[in-house]
């Protein structure tokens, strides 16, 4: 059985990862995230407005400097396929007073949406993982952080295999 983590990682393509973005504020950041989903063919341009609507109705700020912008239920028709985008703002984006450095934008039509959210929330509850998501320089590392199975295969760095677990 494929775990939720597998699904979350499968939904995040390397070309949907931006590590060095800049935004003037929340709306600007949401537009940027939405544009990535549009650029990779996951959503129609109108989905960006649905994301802004959702954000104005209820903030998607999660804590740990992370927000998860996504569209309203009404905006689901504008999704072409389920996908994630990972956009990082090293200088931070002002999210109603909260500094956001990581946005994980979600396009999901069905119930997959909640499972992805749950998986992300579990990852972020681990402060070390959350910090790595904010700081990792390598897109492969971001993919690995969101996919525990890939992380086990990622054994090239001795510092990160200090736990000595065997696969």
């Amino acid at each position, binding site marked *: 059985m494929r775990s939720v983590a597998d699904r979350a990682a499968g939904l995040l393509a390397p070309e949907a990862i931006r590590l060095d973005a800049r935004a003037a504020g929340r709306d600007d950041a949401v537009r940027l995230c939405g544009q990535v989903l549009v650029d990779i063919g996951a959503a129609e341009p109108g989905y960006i407005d649905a994301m802004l609507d959702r954000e104005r109705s209820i903030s998607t700020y999660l804590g740990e400097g992370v927000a998860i912008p996504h569209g309203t239920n009404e905006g689901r028709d504008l999704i072409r396929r389920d996908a994630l985008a990972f956009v990082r703002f090293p200088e931070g984006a002002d999210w109603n007073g909260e500094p956001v450095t990581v946005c994980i934008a979600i396009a999901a039509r069905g119930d997959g949406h*909640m499972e992805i959210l*749950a998986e*992300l929330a579990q990852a972020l509850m681990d402060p070390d993982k959350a910090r790595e998501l904010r700081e990792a320089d390598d897109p492969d590392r971001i993919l690995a952080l969101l996919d525990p199975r890939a992380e086990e295969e990622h054994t090239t760095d001795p510092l990160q295999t200090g736990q000595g677990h065997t696969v």
Partner: protein
Amino acid sequence: MPERTVIIGSAQGLHARPAKIFVHRAAQQPVPVSIRAGDRAPVPASSILGVLSLGAAQGTEVVLSADGDGADAVLDELAELLAGDLDAEEPDHV
């Protein structure tokens, strides 16, 4: 420790607005409240990350627990909230 088992009533499950309303209400209580689903460890009901990590959809069974003065009344209030249609409620504060 007093517990309440409750079935999530909200059509969109315990995320977005329903999760925020629940977390906000849980944080206002005089005693700490935990929530768990399935076999996973309980998380604080006042943590949005914790509550989202449950992945509780409509119909998911969750268990609330709390200890201390007034715990039973607190659990009754929160259980009623979760069983109802939170999508239809307006939050006190967003």
